[in-house]
């Protein structure tokens, strides 16, 4: 995964709280192999008529090339389905700004190069007002934890270890494999001192 530290993108606002992962991608699409791309499933039932046509009034459908979402609190709450992040990433979304995120969603996002940026309520209000009528250009500086959208300049927060991971495009499996010896030693001690932690294969 390639790292990134600055981005210039086009932002829209979905002015709703609790956009959960069942809405980000309804369960019925989750048996599709990732290689087929998940972008077309993003917010499927919110965004599309029952015929599958895009709803003209839905903010995300305003134009092509949207790469940043601003949304209400508790974005990505609910299920652990990483498919919700795949749907965002495969649609070209690089960052989501919201007052709070579902925990599992946020770590899934970082694992896929998507920035879950936490903003305070005042920033949320300012951004959603600026985006009320149309999408606008946004500049993101991950290192400085700052954003600029028109006249709105603000800071966002993200766990330092997550920011580093995004900037460097790090992959946890590679990092962890450097600690192989420590893990083996830990397992050995646990096995000796805590026998009951291993399943007693009775059958």
């Amino acid at each position: 995964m390639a790292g990134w530290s600055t981005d210039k993108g086009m932002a829209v606002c979905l002015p709703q709280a609790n956009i959960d992962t069942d809405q980000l991608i309804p369960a019925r699409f989750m048996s599709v192999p990732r290689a087929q791309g998940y972008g077309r499933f993003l917010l499927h039932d919110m965004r599309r008529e029952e015929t599958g046509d895009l709803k003209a009034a839905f903010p995300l459908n305003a134009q092509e090339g949207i790469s940043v979402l601003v949304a209400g609190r508790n974005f990505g709450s609910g299920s652990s389905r990483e498919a919700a992040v795949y749907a965002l990433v495969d649609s070209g979304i690089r960052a989501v700004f919201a007052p709070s995120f579902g925990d599992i969603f946020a770590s899934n996002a970082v694992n896929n190069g998507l920035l879950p940026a936490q903003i305070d309520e005042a920033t949320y209000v300012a951004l959603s007002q600026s985006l009320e009528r149309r999408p606008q250009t946004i500049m993101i500086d991950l290192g400085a934890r700052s954003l600029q959208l028109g006249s709105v300049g603000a800071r966002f927060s993200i766990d330092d270890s997550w920011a580093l991971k995004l900037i460097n495009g790090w992959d946890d499996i590679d990092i962890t494999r450097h600690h192989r010896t420590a893990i083996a030693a830990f397992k050995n001690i646990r096995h000796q001192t805590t026998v009951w932690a291993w399943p007693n294969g009775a059958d």
Partner: protein
Amino acid sequence: MKPIAQTMLDKLWTAHEVLRREDGVSLLWIDRHLVHEGSHHAFGKLKERGLSVCEPDLTFAFVDHYAPTRRSSQTSDPQIMGMIETLRQNAHDHGVHLYDLDDPRQGIAHVVGPEEGLTLPGLLINCGDSHTSTHGAFGALAFGIGATEVAHVLATQTIWQRKPKSMRIRVEGTLGLGVTAKDIALGWIGKLGTDGAQGHAVEYAGAVIRGLSMEGRMTLCNMSIEGGARFGIIAPDETTFAYIKDRPFAPKAGAWEQACADWRALSSDNDAQFDREALLDASEIAPTVTWGTSPEQALPITAAVPAANEVTPAKREAVRDALEYMGLKAGHKLEGTAVDRVFIGSCTNGRIEDLREAAHVLRGRKAKIPGHVSPGSAKVKAQAEAEGLDQIFKAAGLDWVASGCSMCVGMNGDLVEKGQRCASSTNRNFKGRQGRGARTHLMSPAMVAAASVTGMLTDVRWLLERHQ
């Protein structure tokens, strides 16, 4: 010097910490890893990198999300069967134990893990499913993870994690008639909100929690995630040990004594400090139902649907939106709202005690609306049949089907039709969760049973009183 008082979270964390990086993120050892059909992305990632499962003996696979509950019609769906077949293949290729469809112990991971004695106090349990928090009922550190993390666990048996803050929810007093663990859960989430415990591990404590069965404790810990907490934990006690003893994978003989001694030491120290505390008075909790599209939109059955201007400004839009989706009007009394169908099951409320509570309400009564009961596991199903509960459900007119996630998420095709209102013992009333346009009301199994009898949202206490 007096040692620093520790919370149960502190003790569990320390026991699993392989190392801690300078930035404060810990590498934790995982004792049990549960996988299911949805883990195909993770197995795919493993394959891409040419890696194999590093601890197959600590990894267990479950057919639950796509499990056909009405076997004949669903087993012919190639998409459903393809998901199950992929899991079979992955389990086989990596030497992982699979609870397959025809296994008498098949069922939902969060029901079968405890039943099999795979879930124990003091363990760290991960699963690519948010309701992994269920296992915290035993005093285990248990949390849901995403696919990339599942791949990481498969490859390394560890996970990188920043320790959450600690929060204690104490429930004191006495629960009233017809009030269950589900009502405690919906009650606190309704009060504190779906992000009320975000970033915190919630420890449930107090006299009411001590008095709950393991089934009730699991329901409560299961719902923790709906309040924003990834972890829900309850200190293990004699109730816990009695549940675990003699389960197939539970420690035996000498190891059992050692285990119980270690488990007793897990409780939070008396003077341990929590980052946050909340106190609930059990006598104030009524049978609770959700009226909206988020678990926090929950109210006592005696209440009326709120108007947008009755809530804080930040939540107004959500109320308007939920009312529209749910087809409800502000001021409308919850009790008496017509319901189209019912569902009893899921990892939240698909255990034997849940079925007993529902059957107790339904005994000698008829359901006015259609619905089905899907036990959380094949073992629960067999137990219920041995007790004759299936006969009560069938006599009432409800369908008695096989075990699986079923209508909790509808991946197996058990869906609520558009615009239909479903009284459900599950955990999420999100838009479209039970099917596109489906309107879900969450409540306890007893309350679902009551709704089936009257065809409306009903205060189960009326029916229970008449039974006495």
